[in-house]
């Protein structure tokens, strides 16, 4: 099952010209700088933006081709806008029920209760949108979109208008949605952090064109893409909770390249989690250092190196085929004789648990 989208849209100086084939499962993030066309692409998928030439096939249903254009209200989708855009004249409950009421009985696969529960808005139902905080409003907008039992959920930077604290308040709901509902999500973002937490696949856009598409972990560490070259370059690693060490308050997380040791978290054994390892925090040694305070050390093979600026290099490493990034100075690279294919040890000074 996949989503095939071809659009050509001219808006004054800006031209969106994309030809995409993305899986109709999991979270696919459209990532790129502002003005790259990611919102326009999302709107075109929803049918809110008409394209001169277009083709859209969502999991086998033609939504647009040369002969037909299915209007937005006949597309089985949910849309969460950047600003929550709740209907100001009705209360939260009526907002959430608005789309639900317009579904035929058999289309109601997600119950109102489920949509309300997943978004955590049960206590807000009788309030008017004007009395809600930004984070609450956005959660209501998410509940409203879920209540139409969408075949695909389109989200346009749902967290962009919120401060860091509000983002942290919403992200867990998005994650539980991702885990509990089998709905493909297309998520527009300009934040690598959000993408690392949520996205399974990544579409990189720039100036109206798709520059790359692939699995998030792969895309974050591809040295030919801007993500891995930036100061905040990071690798994303999926690991499984292997056990806890109560004596030292630690949790062990296994991934194909070895075992991460992190401060203890109340996680069930066997649960899959995402880890973020920032390139800046990864140093390289030729020998396995025994006399170091760093616990997370893995044997890796150097896959590729590229210069970043005049003094630095970004090194792509493979820990049993799982990519990691490291930033080293050009001088260190020369002293250690780093080159493609060389076996070294990567020391990760810090690891962030994403979910």
């Amino acid at each position, binding site marked *: 099952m996949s989503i095939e989208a071809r659009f050509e849209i001219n808006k004054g100086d800006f031209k969106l010209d994309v030809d995409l084939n993305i899986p109709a499962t999991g979270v696919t993030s459209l990532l790129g700088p502002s003005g790259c066309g990611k919102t326009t692409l999302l709107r075109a998928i*929803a049918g809110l933006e008409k394209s001169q030439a277009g083709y859209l096939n969502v999991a086998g249903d033609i939504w647009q081709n040369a002969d037909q254009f299915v209007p937005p*209200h006949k597309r089985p989708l949910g849309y969460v806008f950047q600003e929550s855009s709740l209907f100001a004249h009705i209360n939260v409950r009526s907002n959430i029920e608005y789309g639900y009421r317009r579904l035929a009985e058999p289309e109601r696969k997600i119950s109102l209760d489920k949509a309300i529960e997943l978004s955590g808005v049960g206590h807000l139902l009788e309030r008017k949108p004007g009395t809600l905080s930004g984070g609450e409003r956005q959660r209501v907008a998410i509940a409203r979109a879920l209540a139409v039992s969408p075949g695909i959920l389109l989200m346009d930077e749902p967290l962009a208008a919120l401060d860091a604290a509000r983002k942290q308040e919403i992200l867990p709901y998005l994650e539980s949605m991702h885990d509990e509902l089998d709905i493909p999500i297309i998520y527009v973002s300009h934040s690598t952090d959000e993408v690392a937490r949520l996205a399974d696949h990544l579409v990189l856009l720039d100036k109206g064109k798709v520059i790359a598409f692939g699995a998030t972990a792969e895309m974050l560490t591809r040295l030919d893409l801007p993500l891995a070259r930036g100061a905040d370059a990071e690798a994303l690693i999926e690991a499984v909770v292997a056990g806890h060490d109560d004596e030292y308050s630690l949790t062990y997380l296994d991934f194909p390249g070895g075992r991460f040791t992190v401060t203890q978290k109340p996680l069930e054994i066997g649960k899959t989690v995402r880890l973020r390892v920032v390139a800046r925090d990864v140093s390289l040694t030729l020998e396995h250092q025994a006399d170091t305070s760093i616990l997370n050390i893995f044997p890796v093979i150097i896959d590729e190196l590229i210069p970043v600026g005049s003094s630095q290099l970004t090194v792509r490493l493979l820990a049993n085929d799982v990519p990691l990034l490291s930033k080293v100075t050009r001088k260190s690279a020369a002293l250690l004789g780093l080159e493609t294919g060389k076996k070294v040890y990567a020391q990760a000074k810090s690891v962030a648990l994403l979910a």
Partner: protein
Amino acid sequence: MFNEADLTALAITLKLAGVTTLILLLLGTPLAWWMARSRWRYKFLLEAVVALPLVLPPTVLGFYLLITLGPHGPVGGLMESLGGRPLAFTFTGLVIGSVIYSMPFVIQPLQNAFEAIGRRPLEVAATLRASPLDRFFTVAMPLARPGFLTAAVLGFAHTLGEFGVVLMIGGNIPGETQVVSIAIYDHVEGMEYAHAHWLSAGLLLLSFLMLLTVYGLNRRFRIMQS
């Protein structure tokens, strides 16, 4: 206080204002909606036409209507050939004149209200399975409620005060086309100042109360929304 002729004039005035407002809301809503949403490049022509009665002397408007609706005019002539009466000097003629005369007072507030909503709420409704008509009735109309109230009251109040157009096409037929503003004029001409006072004060009070209602309700609506 009011004599019988005054009361009849008052009744005709209120009926005229009511019918005119109703017609304008029915015809003006789709037109204002279209004008608020359309990107047609010659839309400004239509906007200028709608605004014309704001600046045109009522006698000019009345004059052209008289020509058109009278027995020798295109509309009046047609009515006559169909076996009807020409529309000049009838209540129907007055309604036609008033609809044109008060048109901007209804259409402009509606257009502004629709424009103020913006596209977003309607796009949201579209992604929530609402058809265009459904979106109009469940999103655009309720959100434009203050605009409707303003439009209705301004249209009504403006028609109440109509003089020039009525004089030109309605004449001054008591019991049929004599409205309050003309009755006042007659009283003054006949030196019946007491009657003129009562009617004038009546219109003043009515107009003021209606405007108070609009501004009061719109203020409450804004507070409710924020």
